[in-house]
């Protein structure tokens, strides 16, 4: 700093807007940016035009002094109006946790929110199908939407799918009113769909995803009431790379998972079958043969997998890097030997509380496969997040 700057009194105001934008974008901390905007109207306008993302203090994952200063139960229609009117170039908006927001607040999306690409409405319990239709109306270029625990129904999902054709990532976890017909509308209407999270949607059997686009690479259907026909529908797109069907509710599933190995899921890389207690050797053999690109497979608590299954994994899973076998009651030394002799790419084995594995068997494994790390932890969630997926044709 220096006195020399005092001489050029109004020069900076003669700079064109795009130069001021350069200066604004150079500032990287919130305080500086806010100070910039408070100097005068023109600089405030520059600040407003350059804001691309916004989320409220109580959104999950944000912990800090600001999260204590205002409860999200205070956020209402008026707040949303002020925010959207001020920042009209927003591309990312999160209202997650704003439990008092009503449908009518979303009517401001049409005049002000048309550039939005990502919208999060997690736990917005008072939003109904009408509110979702306002989202479709106002944000036609939406690519990512999160509706965790929302009371959207199939009709609402259909309206959304018909309006937002560019949707790529959709989170419907814990939406109790969604069923296969809503899913069908989504998968048929949005042909660029890449990732769908339908975990804990009790009304979903999976058939709604039949004929989905090959761009659908990620499905998270943990704790769903899937049926064998639903599994076939899930893989029918042909592009699946990440599949999570942990805690499969249906106990009569038995060989129903064979469909995963039927060839449609040949690109599968990560498969989570944790706590699928009734999955049989026949299914394991089919999957091991039909999914040659598998890199990570979670079979923790899959008690019905026996020697035949383990042997098939050993001899067919040439790309497997990580395998989870925690608490598998029927992993015996023969099975472990089959894994030991196969799976050449294995680098991590998650193993704990396997009652039929003796210390000797374990030591033999370590001796022969000293490059495999053995970890005792139980990992519930594997693979990337639903909103971090990018479809890549070449991989």
């Amino acid at each position, binding site marked *: 700093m220096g006195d*020399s700057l005092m001489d050029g009194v109004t020069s900076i*105001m003669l*700079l064109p807007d795009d130069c001021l934008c350069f200066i604004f974008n*150079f500032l990287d901390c919130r305080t500086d940016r806010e100070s910039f905007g408070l*100097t*005068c109207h023109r600089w405030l306008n520059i600040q407003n035009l350059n804001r691309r993302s916004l989320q*409220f*203090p109580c959104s999950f994952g944000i912990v800090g002094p600001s999260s204590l200063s205002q409860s999200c139960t205070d956020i209402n229609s008026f707040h949303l109006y002020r925010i959207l009117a001020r920042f009209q170039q927003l591309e990312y908006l999160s209202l997650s946790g704003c439990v008092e927001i009503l449908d009518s607040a979303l009517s401001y999306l049409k005049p002000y929110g048309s550039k939005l690409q990502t919208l999060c409405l997690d736990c917005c319990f008072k939003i109904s199908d009408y509110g979702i239709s306002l989202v479709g109306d106002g944000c036609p270029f939406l690519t990512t939407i999160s509706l965790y625990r929302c009371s959207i129904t199939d009709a609402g999902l259909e309206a959304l799918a018909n309006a937002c054709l560019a949707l790529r990532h959709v989170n419907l976890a814990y939406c109790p009113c969604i069923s296969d017909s809503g899913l069908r509308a989504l998968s048929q209407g949005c042909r660029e769909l890449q990732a769908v999270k339908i975990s804990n949607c009790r009304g979903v059997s999976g058939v709604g995803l039949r004929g989905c686009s090959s761009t659908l690479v990620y499905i998270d259907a943990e704790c769903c009431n899937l049926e064998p026909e639903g599994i076939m529908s899930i893989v029918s797109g042909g592009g699946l790379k990440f599949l999570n069907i942990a805690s499969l509710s249906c106990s009569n599933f038995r060989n129903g998972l064979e469909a995963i190995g039927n060839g449609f899921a040949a690109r599968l890389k990560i498969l989570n079958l944790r706590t699928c207690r009734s999955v049989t050797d026949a299914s394991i053999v089919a999957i091991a043969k039909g999914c040659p690109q598998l890199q990570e497979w979670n079979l923790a608590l899959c008690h019905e997998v026996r020697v035949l299954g383990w042997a098939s994994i050993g001899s067919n899973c040439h790309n497997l890097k990580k395998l989870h076998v925690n608490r598998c009651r029927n992993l015996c030394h023969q099975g472990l030997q089959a894994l030991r002799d196969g799976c050449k790419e294995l680098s991590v084995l998650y193993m704990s509380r396997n009652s039929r594995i003796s210390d000797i068997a374990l030591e033999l494994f370590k001796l022969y496969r000293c490059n495999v790390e053995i970890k005792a932890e139980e990992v519930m969630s594997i693979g990337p997040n639903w909103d971090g997926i990018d479809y890549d044709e070449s991989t």
Partner: protein
Amino acid sequence: MLLSKNSALESKDNEIFEVEESIAIQSELIKTMTTMVNSKAYVNERNQMVPEARCRKQANYHVEQNNKIVDEELSDWESKFFEVDMDDLHELFMAANYLEIESLLNGVTKRVGDFIKACKNVEVIRQTFGINNDFAAQQEEEIRKLNSWNHI
């Protein structure tokens, strides 16, 4: 340090200066105009520009110097180059923006940005740059309140 290929550039105030072509094309604008004029056949090309001020000369000077100095001295030289008053900074900014010279633009942006960062509050920014406060007290209060609502 003349190479075989030189550009002759004329500024609006009719000053002509010779610049090595490799330096001249660091300006995106000149690069575009050069390719349009098809300079390959000519050893000395003459490009007519329509700049607005003498600051063009400074811009070219910077680019020329940039290429002559060894790396260690470069950052020293750069910080001295930008230690000018606001009027000159303004001219440099306009030149860099018009001629589309990225390195110059980054340098000037950083200089101004550092000044803003060094200011403790809004009032100091206004004083430093001579900005007139055109907010009513209530408007300013509203903006501060809006700022406190949300998180980046």
